[in-house]
């Protein structure tokens, strides 16, 4: 293993919070008491939670050390497919922390909340322009909640036509949240097989679509990183039977300024602001999953809607057709601020972002396709999917490749997804990685392929560099230890 980005160095151990501390310490500055104590009825009071007692410095070191065990986009390249781990601009963090925004109470009278309402209003307009779908709700807190919102819109739409439909078509390449969201809405998922090109076949859809089917959920580009060429025919088929088309926009980063989602026949689309629009993923969240819809579906959008008149913004609850609320307030507003800041900073260069994202993915695909098995050898969009097929002869798996990449100093790609590809290795470089970084990743993957042949144990035992080695997930699940 020649000079790589990854190396070993000093890392500090750190116990669990409650293995630290002693009663008598406190990390919090108790506000001065300027009123008398008002004892609470003792039948109501408890013992108080058993929290550890730490000083400020203990807490600071605890989390500083923990952070050093993590790999983020700021650490290095993070080609996690389907997650669009692009650079999270620092100015976005600044804006979200502005006291006027961060300290704003959600139920302020609208005349006292013109700043936040204005941001929401404008962000809706900007997202409408990027997607081509005219009406937007920012309320869903993440992509999956956007999907649920979409399914609820389907339900409300059909109900408004005095129909209840029981099924929904979902391609086999779909993300797990798609069927799960549909199920929450009572829809039975009907899997649609993708064809040998990795995309939907209109005939297959036509064969499945009927008048008990609420519609279809399509991810486009799909999770193989391929554009659904037949999307318009598919949409027509679905529409012809009175169904609706849901677009999972998790992969919007491939097509900003390239396509107009409305033109593709989509009725509802969710966006993942924490993917396409550069908001940080926070080690799991918070995200934000706005839904964009056609004028026809607009009446069903969640309340409140942000309205503007006489240069004043206000919230309107007066939408009798609305599905109601999906979040207690207006969704993850702090994340919306970041996306807003990003769009204002990029302007029409959003299209460039998509072009470069696609350029980078194709470049990686071309450079690696002789080395790793490429199940669908056609131009890809923002990500490309390889498999471990060539490695099986060495008894080396996708998991081994991923783990070995850690030793090389990269975050692994998404693995074993989409499910339709055996041993999938899904690489999404994003537009914010330079060609040098792409080359480094490619070289690392080539070196790993060589190792697979020559020293396969290196892969099987990988990773060896991080603080911990492979973890026993079986025992974790069999004898769950979920708190200490």
């Amino acid at each position, binding site marked *: 293993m020649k000079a790589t980005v990854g190396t070993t160095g000093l890392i500090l151990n750190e116990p669990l919070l409650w293995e630290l501390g002693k009663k008598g310490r*406190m990390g919090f500055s108790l506000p001065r008491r300027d009123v008398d104590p008002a004892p609470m009825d003792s039948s109501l009071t408890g013992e108080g939670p058993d929290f550890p007692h730490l000083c400020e410095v203990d807490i600071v070191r605890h989390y500083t050390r923990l952070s050093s065990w993590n790999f983020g986009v700021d650490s290095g390249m993070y080609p996690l497919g389907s997650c669009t781990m692009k650079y999270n601009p620092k100015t976005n963090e600044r804006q979200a922390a502005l006291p006027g925004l961060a300290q*704003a109470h959600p139920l302020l009278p609208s005349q006292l909340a013109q700043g*936040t309402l204005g941001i929401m209003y404008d962000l809706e307009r900007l997202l409408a322009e990027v997607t*081509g779908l005219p009406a937007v709700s920012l309320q869903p*807190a993440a992509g999956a909640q956007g999907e649920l919102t979409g399914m609820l819109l389907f339900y409300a739409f059909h109900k408004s036509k005095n129909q209840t439909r029981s099924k929904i078509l979902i391609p086999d390449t779909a993300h797990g949240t798609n069927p799960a969201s549909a199920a929450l809405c*009572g829809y039975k998922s009907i899997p649609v097989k993708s064809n040998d090109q990795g995309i939907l076949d209109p005939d297959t859809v036509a064969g499945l679509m009927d008048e008990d089917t609420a519609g279809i959920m399509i991810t486009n580009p799909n999770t193989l990183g391929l554009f659904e060429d037949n999307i318009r025919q598919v949409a027509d088929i679905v529409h012809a039977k009175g169904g609706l088309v849901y677009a999972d926009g998790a992969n919007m980063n491939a097509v900003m300024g390239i396509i107009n989602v409305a033109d593709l026949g989509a009725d509802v689309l969710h966006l993942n602001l924490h993917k396409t629009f550069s908001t940080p993923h926070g080690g799991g969240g918070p995200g934000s999953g706005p839904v964009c819809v056609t004028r026809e579906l607009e009446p069903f959008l969640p309340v409140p809607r942000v309205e503007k008149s006489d240069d004043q913004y206000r919230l309107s609850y007066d939408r009798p057709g609305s599905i109601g609320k999906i979040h207690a307030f207006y969704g993850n507003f702090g994340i919306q601020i970041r996306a807003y800041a990003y769009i204002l900073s990029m302007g029409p260069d959003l299209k460039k972002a998509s072009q470069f994202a696609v350029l980078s993915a194709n470049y990686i695909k071309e450079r690696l396709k002789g080395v790793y098995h490429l199940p669908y050898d056609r131009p890809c969009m923002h990500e490309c999917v390889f498999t471990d097929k060539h490695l099986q002869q060495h008894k080396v798996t996708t998991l081994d490749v991923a783990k070995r990449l850690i030793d090389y100093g990269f975050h692994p790609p998404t693995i074993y997804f989409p499910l339709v590809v055996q041993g999938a290795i899904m690489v999404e470089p994003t537009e914010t990685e330079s060609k040098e970084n792409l080359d480094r990743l490619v070289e690392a993957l080539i070196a790993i392929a060589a190792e697979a042949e020559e020293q396969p144990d290196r892969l099987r035992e990988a990773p060896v560099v991080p603080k911990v080695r492979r973890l*026993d997930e079986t025992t974790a699940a069999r004898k*769950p230890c979920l708190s200490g």
Partner: protein
Amino acid sequence: MRYLPHTDNDVAEMLSVIGANSLDDLFAAIPEACRRQDALDLPEAMTEWELNKHMGRLASAMAVCPEYLVFMGAGSYDHYIPEAVKQLLGRSEFYTSYTPYQPEVSQGTLQAIYEYQTLTTRLLGLDVANASMYDGASGLAEALLMAIRVTRRKKVYVSQLCHPLYRQVVQTYFEPTGYEVVELPYRDDGRTDFSGITDLEACAGIAVQSPNFLGCIEDIATLSENVHTDPKTMLIVSFTEPLAYGLLKSPGILGADIACGEGQSLGIPRSFGGPGLGMFAAKKAYLRNMPGRLVGQTKDLDGKRGFVLTLSTREQHIRREKATSNICSNQGLCATAAAMYMAALGGTGVRELAQLNHDKAAYLKGALNQAGLETPFGAPFFNEFVVRLPGSSEETYNRLLSEKIVAGLPLASFYPELEGHYLMCATETMDREDMDLLVKEVTS
């Protein structure tokens, strides 16, 4: 553009490796009909400095402290957040990483969430807590759905004193399911009236919030006794102000099967309502029915302690339509913030701070009473209570607004019978002089 590294040369070289002639070529596979014809009609890109100005202007259009005194809680609370917590959350290894699918390079996130889960179980008095839900509202909806899954019953009761906006979200989640949600009215003392429940054996779960939306502390112990006369019916305790459990008996101790609610109070800025933190905990028996991610402790190949996402067979990416929930991205960083905050408070701090919150609200309530204002609900409260504003309430309220005082939340839009009533909140951030000012202005 400072975010985009590709130089013209880079683009040319990469295109040539790909065998494409232009960037447009890369999209040749997209059918013509699908291609966007018009350019993006977006405002010209702002510089970093223009953006700062622009955002500064927007932020300054907001009514926040110290310019405004905002006596409003109602599900979003003003608590002091230690600077240490803010700066630690800014460690980019935390906030720029994804869900910890690769545990070897995510031990920071994983241990932090494991610790969050633990502190949450200790706060709520239950056995297991998940890694977070979106917010208090969807958490409540999912708790009710979980009760339905567990009990295989189709009806739930929800107190009318659960946060009205949470109830709206419950309605939205339940609309297509065919399950029945029955709302329970409230009594004169500001607590829920459970007397209408006569069919426990048909009931999957009963949801009650405490402190409830009127600020009152519900009698969960008695309710629990009654609910658990049916061996299956689940008691769900919802909350918007978890700091209360620093002082009050925890939901778990009182008999809750599930406790769920909003954790914004615990070190998370209000941010106009989000991102907050859906906290969710349950008795161990229900573990495999829980929605959301779970972090578990395990060992690595060398026997070293480590943490992983676990029990994912409940989850959408494995179980797809059979998952216990559709949740994928959650509110991880907010959970981390809450853990930092709880750790900073510690056992002593959480209790003292909770007591102080109560003391402040009690002071304000007392002062308003003394000034002759009515506070109609007699049940014990934590840091919120209802007051009737004198005179033409709306006029008084608006006059106070013009004095830069937000005198609580008008309740009429949620409870028409409470026309003229306002939900007031005083936390540790309210100085006595602020409260005195409110009283003075209300009565002037």
